């Protein structure tokens, strides 16, 4: 039976029942009953084999081994294991479903938008000999200022 993976994981044990909203800034392992909502935006939420959740779940990653009734939204991945049961709609970037899992609902894959790559640093050009192009003084100052900001 999977156990919470690290010390930085909050755990709802199998003898616990919660009605309401859960918001956490660390990983969460639910092996009890939850009704309401579960949010852990940058972290992982795991519904253990004894977990029975009637709640919408929003997290970075959601792993389901128990029963969930509600919509699941994961910015990274949803992982539905064998013998898990999920009734609800999934929105995620990636999904994994093992044979034997029961799923009823829709799957919408939203590819994570690539983070804008850092603008490449302008190549430092070898100093060229100044070209004797006659330009107005104001314009020259403006150009030099913009280059300096980079």
């Amino acid at each position, binding site marked *: 039976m999977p156990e919470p993976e690290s010390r930085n994981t909050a755990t709802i044990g199998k003898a616990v029942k919660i009605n309401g909203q859960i918001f956490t800034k660390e990983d969460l392992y639910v092996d009890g009953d939850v009704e309401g909502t579960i949010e852990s935006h940058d972290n992982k939420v795991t519904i253990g084999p004894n977990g029975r959740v009637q709640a919408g779940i929003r997290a970075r990653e959601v792993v389901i081994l128990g029963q969930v009734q509600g919509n699941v939204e994961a910015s990274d991945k949803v992982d539905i294991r064998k013998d898990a049961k999920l009734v609800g709609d999934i929105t995620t970037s990636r999904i994994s*479903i093992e044979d034997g899992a*029961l*799923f*009823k*609902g*829709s*799957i919408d*894959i939203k590819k994570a938008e690539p983070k804008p790559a850092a603008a490449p640093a302008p190549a430092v050009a070898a100093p060229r000999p100044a070209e004797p192009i006659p330009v107005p003084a104001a314009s020259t100052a403006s150009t030099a200022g913009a280059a300096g900001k980079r």
Partner: protein
Amino acid sequence: MLPEKLRSIFRRESESASSGASRPAGGGSPLRRPSKKEVTVARQSRGLEQFFFNVRDIVGLSILDLAGASQENINFLTNLGHKVYSQDIIRSLDEAFGPDPAEQTNVGRIEYFLRTNFDYPPGTFDGALLWDSLQFMGPALLNATVERLHELMQPKSYLLAFFSSSDRAAEAPSHIFRIVDNKTMLITERDIRPTGQVFNNRNLEKVFAKFESVKFFLTRESLREVIVRR
């Protein structure tokens, strides 16, 4: 005192009698039984090819897949850019009606089945992969399901369904279908179950009478592939 073994036989018989397990309309085996084959076969499908040909070059469609959630089908459909609506309709049939095909005439249960499996706004789907699920429905349930599908599908959209091509078979294997590519699928036999009725081309045209067109592909493995245009 009856020996325990004998008593258990009587108990089983009386249980099946009380549950109303009867022979289906076709007069075949009353209940489903496990498959003897546990092999998975890769198979080309003209129906599947036609289905994906019809939705080619379009992304963002809503596709209903009644085969139950599988990694292969989800990957294939979402990689084409579609949204997948997934459910295991054979399992839902068992949950709603139990093992007895006679229960499929119960109006209340039919309504419950439709409510729990096809509760979507009209015009939700741009395509439907029904696989072989319809052939295990009795006439009343089948007509109600097809009627509901007609409501749920967009005009000009397509559905794909498979039926046993044997006109006399009272039972047929149900399968798990996994998409390999746009014309190949993996088929695994799940179990053998009574067919709801006999399906020949004429019957199928009647079943889908409200739809715009019905196209048949006969295949080698006693399977009739049907592409229906809404």
